[in-house]
């Protein structure tokens, strides 16, 4: 008996004292995704998929410049060295492709690769059509009607209408290796042995568990050949799990640490990295029925929210107040008349002027669909309860209906009909990465379902006119200025309750060096190194 106990003690001690080793120059990342994003090219899991898989293994013709923190990423040459609108036909764009680029499998990149990829997304009859990948991305590529090869390194793109938004769409289409696909002839197999041109290549893929990448030493841009040798991506949807993993040294970098733990992490020597990026969190409102069909009620709601309180007390400064679709400092912010600072007195005044005295006459009850968790949703329950309280304090009653994240996205698609007939607000976070995602899909009258997701519906001739003009303006600075005007219109119309902008918090071990947090949903991992 004593021998047995002795053995147990030794076993327990040796387990406790042994520690998990980490190879040198290996960056281990805990993602919020519940599973490994699709590695077959056009990735899933939204922007986290692009962040860690899509843009690391693959590249589009045009890249985001993610090297700076102090300004928005600009569009720079990727697999295309240059691009321009054809002078003879504004519906045609010419892309000059980069030479001497090889895919991870050794085959050469050229115009055929681009056409192959295009067909895999857009051409249902093509042998290489990827049903899954296409469903993920093709809605972003509405301006890409057809592609033609002019020569081995020149592509001509045809658009359905004249649109200056083409580069903003090209940036989403990453190029896959036709040679590799021909070897396996199946996207699932391709996903297990992917081949792109990106700075990292896949070495090991354990479904649902980990994805291992190694530096692509033959990458075409010597400035962006990765400093780190290996990257390991681990899905960790639970915040506490991520936190535990970081603290115990199982990973070096986690996405979205629980806001409560930030003080502790800082105290423990961990780096907390944040930056503004094109994210907004708010309520999208139903504009054709009470209570939100009354602009006064919408404005009052926006003046009632204590955004600073939410960011400081609940989220430990991992967000900033949001008073519009874009944030102050963003080229699209413009100069809106309404400032939407925290002013409950003003809110009550506005309501009173509209005939709601807050006692006998109150606006109709608002019913908001919220989620219990979800990508980009931050802390939906806690935040919404605060919003609810703020609104109640000025005389607007809100019922919250929490449902699961997947259900919420599904019901968002339906719009304010059918199952959502009794609902008049939806809390979903959005991005405003490019003009369509930020404005086009919501604030143009042609974007009502089924074309896109203007479910409110927001119909404003001024907004329509400005958005159409923006789409015809090829000078990016002028385009930004027009979009800023759109923003002013939107902010003053208040079709949403604007609440906060997330700051993309990440926590890293002190050993991680060289990371520059861009003002983007994406990251550049090539300059990162992990000290010993």
């Amino acid at each position, binding site marked *: 008996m004593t021998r047995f106990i002795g053995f147990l003690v030794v076993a*327990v001690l040796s387990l406790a004292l042994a520690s998990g080793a980490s190879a040198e120059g290996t960056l281990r990342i805990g993602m919020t995704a*519940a599973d*490994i994003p699709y590695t077959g090219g056009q990735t899933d899991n939204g922007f986290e998929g692009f962040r860690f898989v899509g843009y690391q293994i693959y590249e589009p013709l045009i890249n985001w410049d993610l090297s700076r923190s102090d300004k928005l990423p600009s569009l720079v040459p990727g697999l295309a060295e240059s691009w321009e609108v054809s002078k003879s036909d504004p519906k045609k764009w010419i892309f000059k492709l980069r030479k001497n680029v090889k895919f991870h499998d050794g085959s050469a990149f050229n115009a055929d690769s681009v056409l192959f990829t295009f067909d895999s997304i857009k051409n249902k009859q093509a042998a290489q059509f990827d049903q899954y990948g296409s*469903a993920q991305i093709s809605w972003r590529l509405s301006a890409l009607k057809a592609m033609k090869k002019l020569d081995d390194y020149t592509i001509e793109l045809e658009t359905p209408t004249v649109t200056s938004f083409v580069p903003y769409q090209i940036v989403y289409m990453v190029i896959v290796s036709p040679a590799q696909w021909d070897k396996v002839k199946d996207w699932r197999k391709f996903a297990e042995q992917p081949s792109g041109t990106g700075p990292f290549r896949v070495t090991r893929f354990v479904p649902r568990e980990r994805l291992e990448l190694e530096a692509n030493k033959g990458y075409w841009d010597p400035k962006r050949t990765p400093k780190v040798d290996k990257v390991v991506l681990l899905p*960790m949807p639970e915040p506490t799990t991520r936190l*535990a*993993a970081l603290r115990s040294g199982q990973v070096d970098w986690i996405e979205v640490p629980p806001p409560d733990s930030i003080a502790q992490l800082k105290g423990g020597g961990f780096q907390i990295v944040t930056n503004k990026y094109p994210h907004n969190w708010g309520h999208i409102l139903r504009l054709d029925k009470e209570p939100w069909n009354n602009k006064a009620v919408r404005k009052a709601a926006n003046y009632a929210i204590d955004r600073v309180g939410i960011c400081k007390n609940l989220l430990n400064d991992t967000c900033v107040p949001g008073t519009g679709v874009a944030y102050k400092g963003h080229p699209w912010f413009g100069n809106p008349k309404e400032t939407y600072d925290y002013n409950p007195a003003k809110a009550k005044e506005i309501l009173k002027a509209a005939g709601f005295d807050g006692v006998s006459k109150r606006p109709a009850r608002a019913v908001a669909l919220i989620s219990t968790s979800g990508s980009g949703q931050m802390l939906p329950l806690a935040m919404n309860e605060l919003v609810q309280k703020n609104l109640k304090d000025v005389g607007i009653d809100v019922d919250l209906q929490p449902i*699961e994240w997947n259900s919420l996205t599904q019901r968002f698609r339906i719009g304010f009909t059918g199952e959502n007939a009794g609902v008049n607000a939806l809390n979903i976070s959005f991005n405003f990465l490019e003009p369509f995602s930020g404005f086009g899909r919501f604030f143009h009258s042609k974007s009502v379902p089924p074309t896109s997701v203007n479910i409110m519906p927001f119909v404003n001739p001024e907004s329509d006119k400005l958005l159409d003009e923006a789409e015809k303006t090829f000078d990016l600075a002028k385009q930004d200025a027009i979009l800023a005007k759109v923003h002013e219109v939107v902010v003053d119309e208040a079709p949403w309750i604007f609440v906060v902008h997330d700051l993309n918090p990440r926590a890293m071990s002190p050993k991680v060096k060289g990371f520059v947090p861009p003002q983007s949903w994406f990251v550049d991992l090539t300059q990162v190194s992990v000290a010993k």
Partner: protein
Amino acid sequence: MWGYVGRRLLLAIPTLLGASIIVFAMVHLAPGDPISAILPVDASKEQIEDTKRAYGFDKPLPVQYLKWLGRVVQGDLGKSIATRRAVILDVRDSLANSLVLAVSSSLLAFGAGIALGLLAAFHQSRALDKLASAIAVIGVSVPHYWAGIILIIIFSVQLNWLPAMGASSDGGLVGYLRHMALPTIALALIPLGVIARVTRSAALDILNQEFVLALRAKGLARARVFKHVVKNAAPQIITVLGLQFGFQLGGSVLVEAVFSWPGTGYLLNLAIFQRDMPVLQGVILVLATFFVLLNLLVDVLQTYIDPRIARH
């Protein structure tokens, strides 16, 4: 006896068939469809319909059921919607992890449980009995997912001795064992309690039989009494062991959720969240089959040890 085994095996078939219908019905009755879970919010209606068709979700339910059943019988559990991998592969990998957890926590629970139970029985009504019984009651009453959280708080957060989650394929065997330690303990608690109590009860039944009391009074060697007790209590204890192993295999969901242990429970949780119907159906059916066969094994073992006990 082989006739009995044969009959039971035959009976298992309609049971499993019924189980498969229930599994299929439950999964398909669940609100929310799997396509929404994997497609971006902005995907067009056409895309959604196309994807649905690609997975065969546009056909009427009974047709889908029969197709699924047909493939199941051939060993094909379909393809996961989220990973497009064969479900059987996902199930195999996660089942391996769950089995490891179930086996190790069973060893812990059985060993400690039987030891405690016998200890209590042989020292009936004395201090040792009260202590052992108290431990058993605690074991049975503790919510194992809470116990898991407490273990994490003590051993991971405060002491930083053991990792809090996952199974870590990069730490080698030692790493795997370290990750396994806390979930094993958490999962073992309830079975430990149940087994201890049943063992105690069964052993007491025998010890308190008149002829045993007489023999002990006459001075029969402790070892022989012990052997007699164990042999006669075995059927009852084995039944419980079998059931508890089933509980640990099927009921590990909560512990796996707390520890992010990549077993069938974790897979199930993920599949529920992703509405990955093929995976849900596959996992539950496989677990149910395991359970049915396990019950069968236990019943047969029982009958073998004590032919007087024959269930219907």
